[in-house]
């Protein structure tokens, strides 16, 4: 392990960027939903998986990756809206444990249903021909599709930021997250804001799924481990903080990637060590405000 070339290290950073991008998309949805509704959405991993499978179905039906990339997150988002309307809404006002248990149960149901529909064996998803293969970055060959994932993540984050900062709905979402009671007193329907936010959050999980599909394939259990890592990202970033989710997602992507480079044996647990250290130094995460769960 003596010859650590700069080129290999740079390639490693790029790899970490892709890992981080997927984490960010998942964590931002989780964080958005939690920050606003104090709902810990355990079905997020299952929705990520649905994104990949919906993408597969759309791709085989229409033959177009672009259609799949746009429609799969929308479909997952719509599914999320139904979940909010019929399952989560009746639980508002009760302890945060109730929706947590409900979404946990829901995730089991979704995974089993996926197994019933698409089989216990995973399905292969291929990147579109234009994005197959590798590009020469000068210092290494890097898969074109992964560069595309970095680009899509960046665009989506920018769009989300503009939406939250520059539109009236975005303003309302930010206000409702800071003080739902006051927003309600001003005559706005906070329930409607929650509804929209749940749709956006789950749609982002679907987007992460369809983006990850061509790299990792679609299989029923694909959300099981990544949901835990995404929670770690949210906790490290600070529960409910969007900026925190972005920074901590990218950070953890690099931590995993670089640990795999230097000490592959540690790659699996390093995420948790990192979380423990951060929580010791900053108990409410990098950008968290204390007391959200109280």
């Amino acid at each position, binding site marked *: 392990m003596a010859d650590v070339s700069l080129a290999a290290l740079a390639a490693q950073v790029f790899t970490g960027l892709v890992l981080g991008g997927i984490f960010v998309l998942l964590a931002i949805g989780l964080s958005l939903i939690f920050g606003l509704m104090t709902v810990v959405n355990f079905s997020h991993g299952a929705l990520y998986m649905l994104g990949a499978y919906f993408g597969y179905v759309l791709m085989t039906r229409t033959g177009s990756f672009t259609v799949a990339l746009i429609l799969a997150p929308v479909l997952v988002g719509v599914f999320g809206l139904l979940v909010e309307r019929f399952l989560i809404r009746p639980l508002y006002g009760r302890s945060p444990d109730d929706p947590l248990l409900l979404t946990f149960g829901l995730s089991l149901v979704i995974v089993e249903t996926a197994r019933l529909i698409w089989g216990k064996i995973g399905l292969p998803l291929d990147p579109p021909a234009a994005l197959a293969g590798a590009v020469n970055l000068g210092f290494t060959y890097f898969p074109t599709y992964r560069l595309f994932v970095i680009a899509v993540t960046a665009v989506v984050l920018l769009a989300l930021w503009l939406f939250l900062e520059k539109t009236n709905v975005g303003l309302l979402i930010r206000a409702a997250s800071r003080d739902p009671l006051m927003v309600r007193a001003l005559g706005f329907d906070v329930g409607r804001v929650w509804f929209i936010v749940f749709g956006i959050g789950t749609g982002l999980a679907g987007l992460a799924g369809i983006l990850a599909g061509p790299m990792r394939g679609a299989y029923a259990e694909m959300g099981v481990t990544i949901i835990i890592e995404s929670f770690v990202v949210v906790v490290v970033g600070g529960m409910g903080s969007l900026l925190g989710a972005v920074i901590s997602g990218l950070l953890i992507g690099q931590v995993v990637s670089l640990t795999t*480079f230097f000490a592959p044996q540690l790659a699996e647990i390093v995420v948790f060590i990192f979380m423990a250290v951060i929580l010791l130094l900053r108990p409410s995460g990098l950008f968290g405000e204390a007391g959200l769960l109280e």
Partner: protein
Amino acid sequence: MQRRTFLTSATVGAATLAFPGILRAQSKDPIRIGFPLPLTGPFAAIAGDMKQGAELGVDELNAKGGILGRKVELLVRDDQLKPQVGAQRTQELIEKEGCQFIVGGLAAHVQMAINEQTKKAKVLFISTSQSDEITAKPDASPITFHEALNPTITSRVVGKWVMENLGKKWWIVYADYAWGKQNNAVLTEVNKKMGGTILGSTPYPLGSAEFSAHLPKIQAAKPEVLMAVTPGADDIAFLKQVKSFGMQNQMKIAKPLHWISVAKQGGPELYQDVYGGINFYWELQDSIPEAKKYVESFQKKFGIPPGDYGVYAYSAVLEVARGSELAKSTDAEKVAAALHKSPQYNHFKGKQYWRACDNKSIQDMWIVKGRGPGKTKGDWGLLEIVSRVPASEEYDRTCAEKGHTA
């Protein structure tokens, strides 16, 4: 007498006259074979093939009147690739369902858990998946038989062939659990013994779908051969990512084992020129009569050619029957003694035998490689046989090395 009762007894009466043998077989309690398998998770494809192999075996037995004149029942349970679940399912199969035999398991670590239960309950167990420990002390037992190959045999055979034919500078990527670690150790040993170099070896957690973080380093190290100890669904994700980094043009890719069910899932493009060992491949029917018979009946029943692990299950079920018939009993020790007394059998790929000291099945294996798109034979003819490696005890560890005195 009601009409239904009358019809039933009339039919039974008629059947007794027509097929006395079958009815006698069914008049006693059936013999039950319990079969824990990871039907869900990364090994689902291979497990599906094993379930079918076992079903075919049981069908054939019942068509011939069962075992000892008793009908045979197969009870398949999902062990979820978790040792504690495997142990629990096995215990239930034995205690609640009254299984006389346990066959199955498809992961070294789950097999150990199953084996603990069968040893405790004194039930004969024929293991159908790779493991070095299961035939070595302290895990070995006189009533545990091992039908599958093991990492030592597989990696010694494949490692030697790769050294002689593909290159001597290797990088090994292996799944971080019993089977992966054993293969890594044996491959490393073979490589060193034959004067090669291991540029690096990287463990990853079994069931991973993301390997990209491992790849730039390997690419930079420029090995001649990339050894992929990546079982089941991991294999597809791994090869896909290796190819997306363009690495198939920079190095040869080899693996201790090919699985046709996994290769089919990944497709010919992914598996083109990927080398590996295999215990059985359906195209062997061209040269081996027993293979032809097995492939044909499998194809007839399931509409697809059989895979490589289903044969283990098929053969193990038939060995349970052969042992019981020879012993005239289902008692584990008596059946084991009978199998020791006549250790040779031949169910699907030519002669095999149980080695006396450790109950290991000694058998042939083959080196194969992926044919690539446009060159496959039908949907399932993805692999090409490169070389046959005849059965030899020398590829396994010796009885003494495994801690057996005999």
